[in-house]
């Protein structure tokens, strides 16, 4: 999977978790940019991402996820 393919899949997960079908995220989006990206949404995002990509994040990995790009990079590394 390329980074762009991962990103597209993430876009859909974000839209479904944030319940906003028009939501546009970018590689640079951080929790600071989206009011809806709070603890509850983050926990849901992680659950959805883990099941969609069939991966499991460790706490250490979670602590380093600070924007969409870092999620994409981590996923790319994990599914290879």
């Amino acid at each position, binding site marked *: 999977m390329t980074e762009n393919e991962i990103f597209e899949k993430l876009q859909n997960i974000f839209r479904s978790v944030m319940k906003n079908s*028009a939501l546009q995220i970018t590689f640079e989006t951080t929790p600071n940019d989206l009011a809806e990206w709070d603890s*509850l949404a983050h926990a849901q995002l992680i659950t959805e991402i883990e099941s969609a990509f069939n991966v499991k994040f460790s*706490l250490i990995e979670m602590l380093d996820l600070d924007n969409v790009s870092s999620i994409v990079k981590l996923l790319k590394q994990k599914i290879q």
Partner: protein
Amino acid sequence: MNLFEYHILLPLKNILRNYSSLNSFYINGNFYTYRQFANRISAIRSVIRSAEKNEKIWGLALHDDLNTYASIFALWMEGKAYVPLHPSWPTDRIESIKEQVGCTNILDSCDAPYTIDLTDNWIEASDDDLAYILFTSGSTGMPKGVQISRKNIATFMDSFWQTGITITPDDHCLQVFDLTFDVSVQSYLVALTQGACVYTVPYGQVKYIYAASLIQEQKITFGAMAPSMLTYLRPYFNEFDASSMKTCIVTAEACPIDLMEAWFNCAQNTEIYDFYGPTEATIYCTYYKLTRSEKNLSLNGIISIGKPLSNVQAIIIREDGALVEGQEKGELCVAGDQVTIGYWKNDDKNASSFFEKDGKRYYHTGDLCYWDRSGNIMYSGRIDQQAKIQGFRVELGEIEYHARKFYNNEHRVLAIAYQNTHNLTEIALFVEAEKEKTTDLIYYLRSKMPHYMIPTRILFEKHFPLNKSEKVDRNILKQKL
């Protein structure tokens, strides 16, 4: 010397003078010493003194920076009170609060270049003067301001230390709460009055993730957290190093016993206290100290809220106002010097929320409780439609008010709080109408309320089910979630 000076201003002055090289704050990756903190306080005091209008109550724009915390103490040393205003709130809400309070002076660390003018003496003020006003959700659609006096806070501090919890300058104290929420006051006050360092969670961060990294990397020793934060972290407890944590307070929400057992296993060296209290009675009213590897008192999986703090009198009453007998359930009411003088300019609410009994003035908490045989208080739910979302108090009536307004009162609406599959509280909004797009409704609600109040699910029903007394049957609707 009055109580506020004794419990807050004097200890802080001693720390600023004698421990000035120690760290006071860790904010966004930077440490700040008590000397730097003192400098900010006196600089901001000069801004306050030079204000054109000499107002008693100041708005405080909340940022996660040293200036914001220094502003609180600068205002207190100038004998003034603060009203927190959150930049992420809708403009409507901020304007409504400013208008209600009538404050025009706003301290906003983003814009003022301060001049330095060092002094650590304070302006004399009475214990009856206000220290802060916190606005909480109001069921009529208008946020209501809880006035907390200097005496209220000082009395709280006295109660807090009498629980036996101690803090020293070596402690690393967590501050995860929004400054609009009063547990933040406990979080910074108990640390700063003892010379410890306060570790904050910057705005715009996922709180539980950032808090976990602080606990692990900065070796946090003391902190108050909402149980929901620990619920999010629970899947990672087996890899989470919380061994530095000596004292942990869980508060702001009902606390599940199984979560606490798991937390005890993860945080091997911690003592856990469950604290309970409404904003109206200044931060905490009762507490229960959990015991490691022994049975803790609980009801339906929820830990007991324990016994009243030393300066709090608690009673449980029936609907007619008489005291309950034995283990009978009733409404918990609290009295004492921690109880607010009332809501800001709100006679109706003040008349219904407070009452006199046996020479004491009590506050109706709205919490349904009973006395366990051991003398501990067991929490059994709300008597009204108030919910706790990630620790924030939410009146479902306020959400319904704005949703009805959006529909020009043409549809009936009903907000329901429910537990999701992760056992966390979410809000669903039912609308009695044909199914339609919800984008405009959500957009409207976001322009009126903070984001945690926005329903996470919106469901349409052609006709609301009614119960025997011809009222909308919440239980049937709840089953659809």
